């Protein structure tokens, strides 16, 4: 099992965002996470990346496990699981003072202390894969949103994570730029990269997802294949949500 999350809880002060989250992901699986706005999708991904500290439950990733039910964990322990996941944000968050190449080699250079020569070679290959090699010496500010997001995907991949986490990777993009980013994600799926993707692109989810999770009010209400969840949902809340999307 690549990921196993059980009974995960997260509150912000009085507000309970994740009530009790249970799911698992196998190696190479592509999971799409859907659900209404405010249902806690972003919070769940951030918990998996330990950008948020869960209040209870356990997260197991790649034979390593953290339990949040006992005494509060030290920061060092808390971020231990972080090395297994790579995060792609809605807003890209490339480092503006660094070129594309510098952006993607920065973390392995100073965290893993790999040699620059090796990283530049590896980086060039990766940039080629996401179609950004021509732009390797540009600063993020001079790139389109789609280009920035593809660079951000490469940046996360450079740390060679077991699991890639995508939080609505295309929802900040102009419609004509969405496709180029989705194509990159699909190519990763073909290579067997384990991924969890929060998305509102239902056709994309149909094409790519091995499993779809529908989240609402802090629970995973329904899970199954794309066909089951998106085309023949059992739960009334899933039906209502998909209906609403269709109406738009």
């Amino acid at each position, binding site marked *: 099992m690549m990921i196993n999350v059980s009974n995960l809880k997260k509150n912000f002060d009085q507000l309970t965002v994740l009530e009790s989250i249970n799911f698992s992901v196998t190696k190479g699986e592509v999971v799409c996470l859907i659900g209404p706005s405010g249902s806690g999708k972003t919070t769940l991904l951030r918990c998996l990346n330990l*950008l948020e500290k869960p209040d209870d439950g356990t997260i197991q990733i790649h034979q390593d496990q953290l339990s949040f039910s006992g005494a509060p964990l030290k920061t060092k322990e808390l971020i231990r699981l*972080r090395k297994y996941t790579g995060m792609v944000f809605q807003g890209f*968050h490339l480092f503006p003072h660094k070129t594309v190449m510098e952006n993607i080699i*920065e973390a392995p250079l100073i965290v893993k202390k790999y040699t620059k020569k090796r990283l530049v070679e590896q980086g060039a290959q990766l940039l080629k894969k996401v179609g950004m090699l021509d732009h390797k010496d540009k600063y993020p500010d001079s790139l389109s949103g789609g280009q920035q997001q593809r660079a951000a995907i490469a940046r996360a991949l450079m740390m060679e994570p077991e699991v890639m986490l995508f939080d609505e990777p295309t929802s900040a993009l102009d419609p004509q730029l969405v496709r180029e980013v989705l194509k990159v994600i699909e190519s990763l799926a073909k290579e067997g990269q384990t991924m969890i993707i929060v998305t509102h692109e239902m056709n994309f989810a149909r094409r790519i997802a091995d499993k779809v999770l529908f989240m609402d009010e802090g629970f995973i209400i329904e899970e199954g294949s794309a066909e089951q969840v998106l085309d023949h949902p059992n739960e009334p809340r899933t039906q209502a949500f998909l209906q609403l999307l269709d109406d738009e």
Partner: protein
Amino acid sequence: MFDWFYQIQWEYLYNPELAWQSVPLLMEGLKVTMIIALFSMFFALVLGLLIGVARMSKFWLFKLPAKFYISFMRGTPLLVFIFILYYGLPVIGIQFNSPIVAGIVGISLNFAAYNAEVIRSAIMSVPRGQWEAAQSLQMNYPQLMRRIIIPQATRIALPPTFNIFMDIVKGTSLASVITVHELLYSARIVAGRTYESMTMYITAALIYWSVCVVIGFFQQYLERRYNRYLNKQ
């Protein structure tokens, strides 16, 4: 009604000859001014960084003293503070061996508070996404500060930091009242001897101004360097 205008004695407005003759003395003074300014700026930056970081800390034992320090230093006149150091401390048995040192200490401690505020607000103005992206790439706090946050904060902090530097250069003139032989003091000596106050103080003003113009060029150079990555269209 315009009598006062006709009484102006224009011949005393500026005596270029005297100004020229006093250049060597004024340059001696300028040297001291620049020594005080550069040392003060250096210490004020280092101290300001520490206080600024303490001020941002969530831990009250760091945060509260830093807040108190900033509040006190910003709320008291530099001249009063210099008096406390140079005339007050000896009363309780602490003596500076030179007024220059007292000046540097006073100016550094005072302006450190302003630097702390500039540094704090610059660091806080780096978007949250930058911190989170760096964290998600497994950088620890020192790494993400040094490589991601501080370079971006520096760009934001440059203009206000240079304002502070110019304030420090001008603030060194306060050291003249504790007998530091800096630029203003030198000008005052000549003015007292020759009664050509107008000439001497205008000359001093022009020299302060020139120094600040040079600092301004340096600022422009650095800003251009740090803004390189911004797309100007």
